[in-house]
């Protein structure tokens, strides 16, 4: 029994699909949100077996969605300003870290919040960011260093 600590994907998908679509529509508009919706849940599917626990799945999938939206915007507008990333769907850990992480580049910010706000492992963060585990570790540590530097000056 204890092998199944993460809910079956069907239930996860049904629980979060509306929130994901809402976020993507706000970022990308109705039409482009549809492709991004598929991309988000396909990324989530790929990473799903590597999840170590079933907590914070909403934050996790919304992070994937934000990154899919960032990628989509980057593809369509090479120099798109991405600073708006992460202005919605704040939950407690987001809020607590917001004053420290707000100015960070989106990937570093996401890595720091997921690592230190939600206590996710690096491979979970990698899945959310669509990057390697090393890159996730790197993003978190660069982000933290940047925050420290800012605090100390």
């Amino acid at each position, binding site marked *: 029994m204890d092998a199944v600590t993460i809910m*079956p994907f*069907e239930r996860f998908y049904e629980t979060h699909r509306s929130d994901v*679509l809402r976020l993507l529509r706000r970022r990308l508009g109705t039409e482009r949100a*549809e492709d991004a919706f598929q991309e988000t*849940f*396909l990324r989530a*599917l*790929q990473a799903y*077996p590597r999840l170590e626990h079933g907590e914070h799945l909403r934050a996790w999938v919304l992070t994937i969605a934000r990154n899919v939206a960032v990628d989509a915007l980057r593809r369509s507008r090479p120099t798109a300003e991405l600073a708006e990333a992460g202005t919605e769907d704040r939950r407690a850990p987001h809020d607590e870290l917001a004053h420290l992480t707000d100015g960070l580049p989106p990937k570093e910010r996401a890595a720091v919040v997921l690592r230190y706000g939600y206590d996710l492992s690096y491979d979970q963060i990698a899945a959310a960011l669509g990057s390697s585990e090393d890159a996730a570790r790197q993003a978190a540590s660069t982000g933290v260093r940047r925050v420290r530097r800012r605090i100390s000056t």
Partner: protein
Amino acid sequence: MTVSPDLDRRFREAAGALGVLDVGFDVVPSPVGELLVAASDQGLASIWFDPDPERDLDRLARIAGPRVLRSPQSVDAARRELDEYFAGRRQSFDLRLDLRALPPFTVAVLRELARVPYGETTTYGALAERVGRPRAARAVGTVMNRNRIPIVLPCHRVVGATGNLVGYAGGLDRKVTLLELEGALL
């Protein structure tokens, strides 16, 4: 924000086509009621009577892994063969079966069961004999009762030594319907 049926369908299709599911399932209508049919990349994993998503999702996750998704094309092959079977146009199934995680005795019994021909019946005792455990008729009965791929693995063709139907996990009515369809009960 409601996800439109079309968007939902496209995602499920893509997930099934890309092979990123541990197991895909769909609900398939049949003359013995709705069936929840599930398939993994290893083959047909289950056919359950009286679908109950809440219970069945967890059962599927335990069999195959957490990436369980309703995805109609994952079970296209099974659906087609089942339709042909119920239409009387198919007597044996060509589907690969996912029997992972089952004990060796269970697998041996199910493999013998698969060889019981269409329209014929055998007994629990005869099946026990064929797997080399002549005194294990009761254990064979338990394997039949827990058979997760009924119809395709034809436990409905197994009856008591005196010819009485004995039992069926899906209910005796269904056993009778299946045997009648095959012309085994006249």
